């Protein structure tokens, strides 16, 4: 059976609840937006419900491991193809194996869960460093990002603690979502641009500190030890687009 959900984490958890509640098997969980209608398969849409989602979180926390909800969330945010079905299998296996499941890296599902969540957290950590704000109006800052995983919801905590005395927006151009921090309050919003064509950013706003930063960047490297491969290992080219210091090199 195909189960369709709205694409949110809450929606996914509600779907997991439905699978357990109605003992559905076998199932295929998909986003409504990416589903291609199928003539032979029965299809149902699951409506997202906060209370049911919470019960799933509580269940996997108590019966599998206190780490399990985070692992599932981070793996979910990768948005990898078929991740919903992998995660459902992880939850089912976790419930049958009990507390040791997340440690059992010899199990292909536990290993996949660990690796997916690591992939997401790795990019999250990188973006703590490479989100670049520009001043739009005094006291208000804007940063466009294009991460591979949907890490935007994770970034909020860090930046509201660190830049708590200024207003800022982090805008995920790929997904059309944004975190808006204003007067000490954090909100998630949808922002789509006027020209929705692939990769079109907002007007290339320059900030006086961009050129200062470029000067700094050019002078802090040791030319005798130039090592473009090493740099690319740490900072792959796909991330260069929104970094002012890489402007001349793209």
């Amino acid at each position, binding site marked *: 059976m195909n189960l369709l959900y709205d694409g949110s984490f809450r929606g996914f958890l509600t779907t997991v609840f439905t699978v357990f509640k109605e003992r559905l098997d076998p199932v295929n969980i998909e986003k409504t937006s990416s589903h291609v209608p199928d003539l032979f398969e029965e299809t149902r849409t699951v409506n997202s419900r906060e209370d049911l989602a919470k019960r799933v979180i509580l269940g996997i926390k108590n019966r599998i491991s206190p780490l399990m909800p985070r692992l599932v969330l981070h793996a979910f945010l990768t948005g990898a193809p078929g991740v919903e079905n992998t995660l459902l299998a992880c939850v089912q296996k976790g419930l049958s194996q009990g507390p040791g499941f997340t440690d059992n890296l010899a199990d292909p599902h536990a290993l996949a869960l660990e690796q997916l969540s690591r992939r997401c957290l790795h990019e999250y950590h990188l973006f703590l*460093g490479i*989100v670049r704000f520009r001043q739009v109006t005094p006291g208000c800052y804007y940063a466009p990002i294009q991460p591979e995983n949907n890490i935007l919801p994770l970034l909020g905590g860090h930046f509201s*603690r660190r830049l708590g005395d200024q207003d800022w927006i982090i805008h995920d151009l790929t997904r059309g979502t944004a975190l808006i921090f204003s007067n000490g309050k954090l909100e998630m919003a949808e922002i789509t641009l006027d020209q929705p064509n692939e990769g079109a950013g907002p007007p290339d706003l320059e900030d006086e500190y961009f050129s200062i930063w470029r000067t700094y960047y050019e002078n802090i490297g040791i030319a005798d030890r130039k090592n473009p491969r090493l*740099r690319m290992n*740490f900072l792959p080219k796909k991330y260069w687009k929104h970094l002012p210091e890489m402007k001349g090199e793209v």
Partner: protein
Amino acid sequence: MTLEEKLALLADGAKYDVSCSSSGSSRPSRPGELGNTAPAGICHSWAQDGRCISLFKILLSNNCAYDCRYCRIRRSNDIPRASFTVDEIVALTINLYRRNFIEGLFLSSAVLGDPEKTMGLMLEAVQKLRTEHGFNGYIHLKGIPGASPQTLRLAGFYADRMSVNIELPTEESLRLLAPQKSRRAILDPIRLLGDDCREFREHRGRHSPGRFLPAGQTTQMIIGASPESDRHILHLMETLYNRFELKRVYYSAYVPVNSDNRLPALAVPPVLREHRLYQADWLLRFYHYRAAELLDEEEPFLDEHLDPKAAWAVRHPEFFPLEVNRADYRELLRVPGIGVKSALGIIRARRQASLDFPHLKAMGVVLKRARWFLLCRGRAMERRLPEPLEIRSRLLGLEAPGLLSGPIPVQLELFK
């Protein structure tokens, strides 16, 4: 001179300082103030040489009163000179921080007039950031040897980390190459800051008068400008970690920037040697090796062809093979191809199920190295485990294919 021209000069002067880490401190954010620190550290960019840029690393001034032979901004070199004002440093730091370019400030300086005056100016900049601007980001401050204990100690209350550079491994080299610096003038502040750090850590509590260098201190030395052996450096490194409780020792391969007959004439910086020393450094800090295990009097230099861990493993065939499902954590760490992460992974996973080679591979163990040293469920990966000499040559083959069959091949020239 414009601000950007000054920045170009003073960032350029700071680039040979290796340290750029922003880890080890967890200064919290406070309402209405700017910034905090992340205990794991955060890198914000990577320079063309592949080193990470985490802190805004600048000199307060490159107008130096000293004349160290190896240094590019020494007094007798004819280069443009500049100094930042305290306010310029504060404004640059705050504005770059607000745009998330940096994790904080790394402030170093040439000796501007005399050490005490220089340290005083640096302290002023840092005080201003912390008190007037409520800046809670990371601050790494260079200690200038020869500054008074009071000034150094006061700086420790504002900075997250301080470092005094040892520069060269022995007193003789120091006398020859940095005649104005003495070993005592360098070691005294390291000892002073180290003692204070310990004192504060032991008496931490509700009534402690603030934080003192929460991220400890580090140091740096130049490799290849003087004749010391790796063994000598490794033992010095061990002492610094154990007795002085340094957080990190950094090594910088000597890049010839001045021509001076007291310095070796090197065509290229000894980067491979530097790399091997860093590997040995990691073995001491995270892998529970001792310096004496890695090198002895007969072999005072690290093997250039083989990393120090693999070299140790090949020299100690009696230690291997290890059974993956039974060996303890420290034993696992000694297997080439198993690092801290995979050793912890193995410990976690084997409580749930017995492990075999495919599991290890999936978990990220580098089997092309580890295969000669491991047993899974009592069996080796291949029918026969080779002799140590053969293992060595196979490992060498992995590092530099073709190394064994004569000279290292080079790309032929098409046009002469």
